[in-house]
């Protein structure tokens, strides 16, 4: 049995993305969820499965506020930024098993106005090993934990900071086209190079935002989705992958290989498509380096060739592999990649506005989280 085309994205919804929402995390999640449910042409009472992001809000909150009489399935996929795309696999598996028909995936956070990342990660069980052994050394935040991976890549392959700058610049360009993005001022490679060093080699403009807002997706059984409000976006292939030494990057045999390298071949095989079939890709962009590394681990280029690939403009709108057409975590909002799923669905529906990739038929979305967990979904328009 395969999850190939067992499920489809039937609805997407997002709140305004801000730095200072003045709202509770639950209120924002309900707002985004209601938008996604209405986008799908459903009533909240039709939701029979929920996979919340797993920070601060639980399935019970939605049962209470939506008046759901008989929720049949709930789970969490605690993989940090890989959670949202991994939740698609979780939802598709539950649907495929006949447990439920319409699964709500939802995230919301006051990531800017509430606890910031340096304070937040210490409380997450995924970071328990780091909290005991590395935080006392001064290795506190993801930028510091990931920077040695980026440095190793530079030293092994001659990768340049200016190449990562192209990711920041093109992602900002796309955010400006989006209309619901936090960062709306164009930047140049020079701006990137002049931005302050956070944890060498990662500069400020290599780092994603901390954001307030919420985003939600409805995953429906494919046989239901074909007759719903919007064009169904079928999940052709989906997988999660965990890196070697998933609790401590320090101990990983190959610092430049992420969990996505294990997941991607499974998802491509399930989908039955090749890299040339991918029209658009929404790639988890907590840091520019992580985008480049995933392009390699996805198999678009060989390990070590990601720098020239991103540096040569292939990832821009109109390029060989347009990525993060909404502005991503770098410039739209940090919704842990739920916004990437929303954008892929919009691209494949033809609803991506000024950032629309012409005639986008097949695309992929990835997640990356914690110490390198990965997830991927390959989708096609119905």
């Amino acid at each position: 049995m395969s999850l190939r085309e067992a499920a489809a994205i039937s609805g997407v919804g997002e709140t305004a993305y801000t730095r200072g929402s003045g709202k509770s995390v639950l209120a924002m999640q309900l707002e985004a969820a209601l938008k996604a449910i209405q986008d799908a042409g459903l009533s909240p009472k039709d939701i029979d499965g929920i996979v919340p992001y797993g920070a601060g809000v639980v399935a019970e909150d939605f049962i209470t506020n939506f008046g759901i009489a008989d929720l049949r399935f709930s789970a969490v996929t605690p993989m940090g930024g890989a959670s949202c795309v991994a939740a698609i696999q979780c939802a598709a598996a539950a649907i495929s098993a006949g447990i439920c028909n319409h699964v709500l995936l939802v995230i919301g956070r006051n990531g800017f106005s509430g606890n910031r990342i340096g304070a937040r990660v210490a409380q997450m069980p995924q970071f328990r090993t780091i909290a005991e052994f590395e935080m006392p050394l001064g290795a506190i935040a993801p930028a510091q934990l990931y920077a040695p991976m980026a440095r190793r890549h530079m030293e092994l392959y001659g990768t340049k900071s200016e190449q990562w700058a192209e990711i920041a610049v093109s992602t900002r360009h796309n955010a400006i086209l989006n209309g619901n993005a936090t960062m709306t001022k164009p930047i140049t490679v020079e701006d990137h190079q002049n931005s302050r060093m956070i944890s060498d080699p990662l500069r400020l403009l290599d780092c994603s935002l901390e954001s307030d807002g919420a985003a939600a997706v409805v995953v429906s059984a494919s046989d239901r989705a074909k007759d719903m409000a919007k064009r169904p976006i079928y999940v052709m292939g989906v997988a999660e992958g965990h890196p070697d030494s998933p609790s401590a990057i320090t101990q990983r045999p190959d610092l430049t290989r992420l969990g996505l390298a294990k997941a991607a071949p499974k998802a491509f095989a399930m989908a039955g498509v090749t890299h040339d079939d991918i029209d658009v890709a929404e790639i988890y962009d907590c840091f520019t380096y992580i985008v480049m590394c995933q392009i390699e681990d996805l198999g678009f280029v060989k390990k070590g060739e990601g720098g020239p690939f991103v540096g040569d403009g292939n990832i821009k709108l109109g390029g060989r592999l347009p990525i993060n057409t909404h502005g991503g975590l770098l410039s739209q909002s940090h919704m842990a990649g739920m916004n990437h799923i929303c954008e892929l669905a919009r691209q494949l529906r033809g609803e991506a506005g000024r950032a629309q990739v012409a005639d986008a038929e097949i695309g992929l979305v990835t997640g990356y989280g914690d110490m390198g967990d990965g997830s991927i979904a390959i989708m096609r328009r119905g």
Partner: protein
Amino acid sequence: MSDQVVAKPMPEPTPDTQPYWDGLRARKLLIQSCASCGKLRFYPRPMCDACYSMDSTWIEASGNGTVHSWTVTHHPFHAGFKGEVPYILATVDLAEGVRLNAQVRGIERDALQMGLPVKVGFEAGADGLNLPVVKPTG
């Protein structure tokens, strides 16, 4: 307020990891060794992933290693480190085959390169906590 000292993050050892911290207190870098099959593991944890034994002993690391990667932190993510930026954290391949992460002392940022031989040292922190540091050889 401006010179108020903020405590750095402190480890909360468990029965699985206490010997490691006790070793540092005695200025020894201890690596856990499977009592059944001898495989070394780091960071300390309950089970050997080769033979699933939960019995372990501890060996003292030679302190010899080479640089695998590094980062120079300029942004203070924790107030306890605000007075120390910029500081270098190096990932070091220890001779025993596991890796250490520690702050660097006495090596300039521009001198760092993959494979650079280094030596592990120890530095006293707050509350009797000793932490490993990475130093030049010789």
